[in-house]
C-alpha cells in the first residue's frame, strides 16, 4: 500500500492561497501599516501590492469610515469581529465603489495579537442589479451636485414623509418618475405598491377604466370585474405622469378621489374608498393650462400642494460628469464591458451640448457610444453627429474689463486654446507656460470654457 506523504504548507503557499481568494484581503500591524495585500485587493482598489505594503491602511483603502469610524480600529480596540459592514471606497482611478467589509484580530500561534485582518467584497454589480430589479430607487440614485439639485435633495425627505399630494414639473427626460419613486421609497408607504400610469399613453375611455376599474357588463366585452390602478395602489402611491393631458371629465373624477378618497368603478353603483398617496407629473405649464381653461383650477390647487420643479440638464451642466460616470458604471454591468471613461475631448463636447431630451438623451448618447466604443475610453467619434459641433470646441469667451496688455494676453490664450481644442495641457505647452500658470491666467482674465 502506497503511503501518502504529508505536505507541510510553506510561507509562500499562504500567499498563493490568499491570492486565489476572490475577496480582497489585507492585514495590518498594530501601527495600521499594511503587511499583506492580496490580488483581489489589488483588483478592487487599483493599488498594487507594492504600492500598498507599508502604507497606512486608511491611505490606501480610502473608505468613508476611515476617519470617523474605522472598523479595523474598533476590532483592534474591542476584540470584536465585524461581518459584512457596508462602506464605500475611492479607488486609485477615482471610482467610488460600494464594499462590504469584515474584520478580525490577527494573532500569532500563541494567541498574541499582532494586528488585524480585513476582508472586503466589491458590491458594485450586485448593487446595480439589485436596484434595477427591485426598481428600488432612492434619493442617492438621483444624481446631481448642482445647487438646484442639492436644493431639491434638502427638501425631498420632508416631502416624502408628509403624505401630501405632490406635483412634479419638468421637461421630458428630466427624471420625474425617478423622483416619484424616491418619494414613495422614503415614505411610510414604501412597503405598499407604487403604481405608475402614463395618462398621455391611453385614450380617455381606456384611461378611465385603467384608473378606476370596471364592473361586469359596464360595456361590451366587460365580462368580469377588473380592479383599477387606484385599487392596486391601495395603501401605497399612485404616480400619474403627464397629468396635463387628461380630459375634463376625468379631471372631475380625479378631483373626487383627491377630495373624498373615493370613486366609482365604471358600471359600478357603489363607491369604493382608497388610501392612496397621489404624485403627479407634467411637462406642461399647468398654470397656463388653467388660464386657458384646459385644466380645472380646483384640481390644480389640489394637486399643487407641494410642487417640485426639476431643472433641465442644460441648466445643471455641472451634473454631467457624475451622470456620465454613473451611466458608464451601469452600462459596464449591463453590457459586460470594461470601459474606463471618456476622453477629455468627449467630456468637453458633452459639457457643451444643450440636451433637449435631458438626462434620457444623455443616457441614449452614452448607450450608443458604448456600442461603438472599441477601446477603454469613449472618444468623440463614438458620439452622434448632432452632438458634436462642427470644428469641435469653440466656446471660449473673454469677459470683464481688461487692460490692453491683458487683452493681448487673453487673445493669445484664446487663440491657442482654440488651436488645441480647449486642451489645457497642450495649450500651456504651446504657450511655453505651465498648466497651473495657464489656469491661473485664465481665471484672472475671465476666460472660461466648458
Amino acid at each position, binding site marked *: 500500500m502506497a503511503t501518502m506523504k504529508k505536505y507541510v504548507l510553506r510561507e509562500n503557499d499562504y500567499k498563493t492561497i490568499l491570492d486565489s481568494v476572490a475577496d480582497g484581503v489585507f492585514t495590518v500591524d498594530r501601527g495600521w501599516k499594511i503587511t499583506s495585500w492580496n490580488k483581489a485587493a489589488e483588483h478592487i482598489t487599483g493599488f498594487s501590492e507594492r504600492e500598498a505594503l507599508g*502604507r497606512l491602511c486608511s491611505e490606501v483603502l480610502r473608505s468613508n469610515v476611515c476617519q470617523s469610524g474605522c472598523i479595523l480600529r474598533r476590532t483592534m480596540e474591542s476584540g470584536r469581529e465585524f461581518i459584512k459592514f457596508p462602506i464605500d471606497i*475611492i479607488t486609485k482611478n477615482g471610482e467610488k465603489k460600494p464594499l462590504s467589509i469584515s474584520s478580525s484580530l490577527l494573532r500569532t500561534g500563541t494567541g498574541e495579537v499582532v494586528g488585524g485582518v480585513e476582508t472586503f467584497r466589491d458590491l458594485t454589480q450586485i448593487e446595480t442589479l439589485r436596484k434595477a430589479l427591485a426598481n428600488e430607487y432612492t434619493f442617492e440614485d438621483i444624481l446631481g451636485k448642482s445647487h438646484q439639485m442639492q436644493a431639491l435633495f434638502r427638501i425631498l425627505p420632508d416631502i416624502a414623509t408628509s403624505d401630501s399630494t405632490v406635483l412634479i414639473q419638468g421637461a421630458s427626460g428630466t427624471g420625474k418618475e425617478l423622483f416619484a419613486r424616491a418619494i414613495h421609497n422614503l415614505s411610510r408607504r414604501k412597503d405598499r405598491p407604487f403604481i405608475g400610469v402614463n395618462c398621455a399613453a391611453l385614450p380617455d375611455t381606456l384611461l378611465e377604466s385603467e384608473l378606476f376599474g370596471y364592473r361586469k357588463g359596464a360595456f361590451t366585452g366587460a365580462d368580469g370585474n377588473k380592479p383599477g390602478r387606484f385599487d392596486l395602489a391601495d395603501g401605497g402611491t399612485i404616480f400619474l405622469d403627464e397629468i396635463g393631458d387628461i380630459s375634463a371629465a376625468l379631471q372631475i373624477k380625479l378631483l373626487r378621489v383627491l377630495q373624498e378618497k373615493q370613486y366609482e368603478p365604471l358600471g359600478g353603483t357603489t363607491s369604493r374608498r382608497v388610501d392612496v398617496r397621489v404624485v403627479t407629473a407634467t411637462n406642461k405649464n399647468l398654470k397656463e393650462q388653467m388660464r386657458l381653461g384646459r385644466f380645472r383650477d380646483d384640481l390644480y390647487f389640489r394637486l399643487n400642494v407641494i410642487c417640485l420643479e426639476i431643472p433641465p440638464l442644460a441648466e445643471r451642466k455641472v451634473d454631467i460628469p457624475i451622470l456620465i460616470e454613473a451611466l458608464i458604471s451601469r452600462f459596464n454591468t449591463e453590457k459586460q464591458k470594461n470601459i474606463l471613461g471618456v476622453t477629455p475631448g468627449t*467630456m468637453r463636447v458633452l459639457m457643451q451640448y444643450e440636451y433637449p431630451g435631458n438626462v434620457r438623451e444623455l443616457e441614449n448618447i452614452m448607450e450608443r457610444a458604448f456600442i461603438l466604443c472599441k477601446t477603454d475610453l469613449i472618444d468623440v467619434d463614438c458620439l452622434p453627429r448632432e452632438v458634436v459641433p462642427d470644428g469641435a470646441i469653440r466656446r471660449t469667451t473673454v469677459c470683464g474689463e481688461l487692460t490692453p496688455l491683458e487683452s493681448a494676453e487673453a487673445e493669445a490664450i484664446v487663440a491657442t486654446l482654440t488651436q488645441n481644442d480647449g486642451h489645457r495641457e497642450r495649450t500651456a505647452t504651446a504657450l511655453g507656460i505651465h498648466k*497651473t*500658470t495657464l489656469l491661473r491666467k485664465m481665471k484672472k482674465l475671465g476666460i472660461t470654457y466648458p
Partner: protein
Amino acid sequence: MCRAGGTINAITVAEVSNMRIAIPVYGERISPRIDCASTFLVVEADGGTMRDVHEAPADGSSLKNLLGLLTREDIDVVVCAGISCEDRQIIETAGVEVNYGWIGYVKDVLKGFVHGRRGGSGWKADRDNRQPH
C-alpha cells in the same frame, strides 16, 4: 470615471509664486479622502516660502460648501489624496486645478508640491519613508 493616475509634470519653484493652495487635513496628515475632510489648510506659496497659512473649516462631503470655500479663499490648486472623478471634474470646471494622489504628513506634501517633487500614478510625498517589512 476618469483615467487612472496620470503623470504630472514637475514644476519649478518660480512657477508656484503667489499660488493659493487648499489641502484637506486630518491631524498632521493629509486627509485620505477630500469628501471626508472637515478642515482644510489654506496656504499661499510664494516661491519656495509659504505665507498666510491658516486652517479653514469646511464640510468636504458637501461640494457646494467646498466650492464656496475655494471661491472665498481664492484658491488656485487643491492638493489632496483620494477624490472621486466627479468631484474632481466639478472642481476643475470651476477653474481650480486638482492635484490628487498625495499621502503623508501635510508639511511633506506641501514641500513636495512646491518643490515639484511629484511622481506619477497618484502616489506622491512620503514614498521613500515607508516602513520596511
